[in-house]
C-alpha cells in the first residue's frame, strides 16, 4: 500500500515527506527534524531530474537520504556552535562567573584559604590568600560555588 502510494506519487513523495518534517520541526522545535527534512527536500529535487534513470532505485534514494541527514546535522551543529558564542548574556545562569570583577568587603578574614564576603544580598565563601576582615577584595575567578579573590 505504502509502496503503491510512493510509486504513484513519484518524486513528489520526497517533497511531501520533507515539508511534513519541516512543519513538525516548527511545531516542536528540537533542531533535529529540520536536518532530515532538508535531506528529504534535496532527494526530491534530485528525483525530479533522475526519476527515470536506471541507477536511481529506491535503495539509493533511501541511503542517500540517511547520509544527507547526518551530513546536514553535522554541518548544522558547526554552524550553530559558531553562532552560539554571539550571545549578549554570556554569564546567564552562571551566577559565580557573573561576579568576576566585582569588589566586596571581606566580612570574615581569609584564614587557611577560606573567608566570607557579602555580595548581592547573600553570603559567598571565598578562597584566596590570607587577609584580615574588612579588606577590600576583588573576585578574580569563579567556578560553581567557589570564588577566588585577591586584595583589591
Amino acid at each position, binding site marked *: 500500500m505504502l*509502496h503503491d502510494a510512493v510509486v504513484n506519487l513519484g518524486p513528489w513523495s520526497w517533497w511531501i515527506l520533507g515539508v511534513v518534517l519541516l512543519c513538525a520541526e516548527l511545531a516542536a522545535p528540537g533542531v533535529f527534524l529540520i*536536518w532530515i527534512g532538508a535531506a528529504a527536500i534535496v532527494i526530491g529535487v534530485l528525483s525530479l531530474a533522475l526519476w527515470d534513470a536506471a541507477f536511481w532505485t529506491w535503495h539509493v534514494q533511501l541511503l542517500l537520504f540517511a547520509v544527507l541527514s547526518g551530513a546536514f*546535522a553535522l554541518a548544522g*551543529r558547526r554552524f550553530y556552535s559558531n553562532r552560539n558564542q554571539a550571545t549578549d548574556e554570556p554569564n*546567564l*545562569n552562571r*551566577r559565580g562567573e557573573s561576579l568576576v570583577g566585582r569588589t566586596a568587603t571581606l566580612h570574615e578574614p581569609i584564614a587557611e584559604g577560606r573567608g566570607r564576603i557579602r555580595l548581592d544580598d547573600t553570603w559567598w*565563601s571565598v578562597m584566596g590568600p590570607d587577609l584580615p576582615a574588612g579588606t577590600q577584595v576583588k573576585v578574580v575567578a569563579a567556578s560553581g*560555588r567557589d570564588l577566588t579573590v585577591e586584595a583589591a
Partner: protein
Amino acid sequence: MNLGGLGGFDIVVIGVVLLIILVLFAGIKTVPQGYRYTVERFGRYTRTLEPGLNILTPFIERIGVRMNVMEQVLDIPTQEVITKDNASVSADAVAFYQVLNPAQAAYQISNLQNAIQNLTMTNIRSVMGSMDLDELLSNREVINERLLRVVDEAVGPWGIKVTRVEIKDIQPPADLVESMGRQMKAEREKRAQILEAEGSRSAQILRAEGAKQAAVLEAEGKREAAYREAEARERLAEAEAKATQSVSQAIAAGDVQAINYFVAQKYIEALAAIGKAPNSKIVLMPLEASSVIGSLGGIGAIAKEVFGDGSGPAAPPRPSAGPRPQPGPRTTPVLNPFNPNSSET
C-alpha cells in the same frame, strides 16, 4: 515468506536508514537556556552539556540528568517550634536556591528539593529554639541570616547555593497573642496615667507658686504702705510741732489776742459748716451760748485793741507804733496749723 515483495537486501537498506535516523535522534541534543544536561558514558558522568546544540557520541554516551540551574523557590512548610522560654510557636519560611555545579547537584545528592527542605526545617528549629519568644518576634533579620549561613554551608558539597532563607510567618499561640496585646495595652495605660499625674502635679505646683507670689507681693505692698503711712504721720507730727512752735512764737512776739482770733475764726467756721449741712433742716446747737458770747467777747477785745481803744482788759501793751487802720488779720501772721509751709513769711 514474502514481505511485500521485498528481498533481503531491501530490508537491510531500510534497516540501515532507520538506524541512521535513530542515531541522529539520540546523538543530537538541544539544551535550552536555564538547564544543564549531564552526560554519562557507560553510566559514568563525563561532562555537562551547555545550552545550545550538542552532539553525543552515539551508543556510548547518553543524557543522565536534566538539571535546572535557574534560581528556584522552595516553600518550607509550617512547623511547630519550641522557643528557649518554652513558648510553642508555628513558623514557616521560604528558601531560594540555585544550582551552581550541575554535576555535583545531580550526583552528590538524591532528591535535592527534599534535602534542602528538611535541612532548612531542622535548622529553623535549632536557630529559633535557641532564642526567647520576644527575641524571635523582633529579630527576624538575625534569624534569617543565621539560617542562611548554616544552610548555605551545609549545601556546599552539593554544588548548590542557598541565596536566601526568609521566615515568612511566626505565629505564637492564640492565648499568648492575646496576653501580649493586654500587656501592650496595660503599658500604654500606665504611661498615660503617669503623664496625667505628672501634668496635674505640675499644674498644682504652678498654682501654689502663683498664690505664694501673690501673697508675698501683697505683704510687701502692705509693708511699704505702712512705712509710708508712718512716715506721713511723722511728717504730720513734725509739721504740727513746727506749727505750734510758730504760733507760740508769734504769740510770744505779738499779742495773746491772736489766739482768740484763731479760736473765734475756727468756731465761726464750724458753725458755718453745721449750718451748711445739706441733710439737716434742724440745726442743733449743742453750744453754750455763753461760750459763743465769750468768743464774741474775744473778738470784741481784738477789735478794741486793733482800733486803738487802748484800754482793753488784760491786753498787754503792744510794741506796735500807734494806731493803724489795717485790720488785725493783716498784721498778725495768719497761720494754718495744718499747713506748716504757709507760715514762712
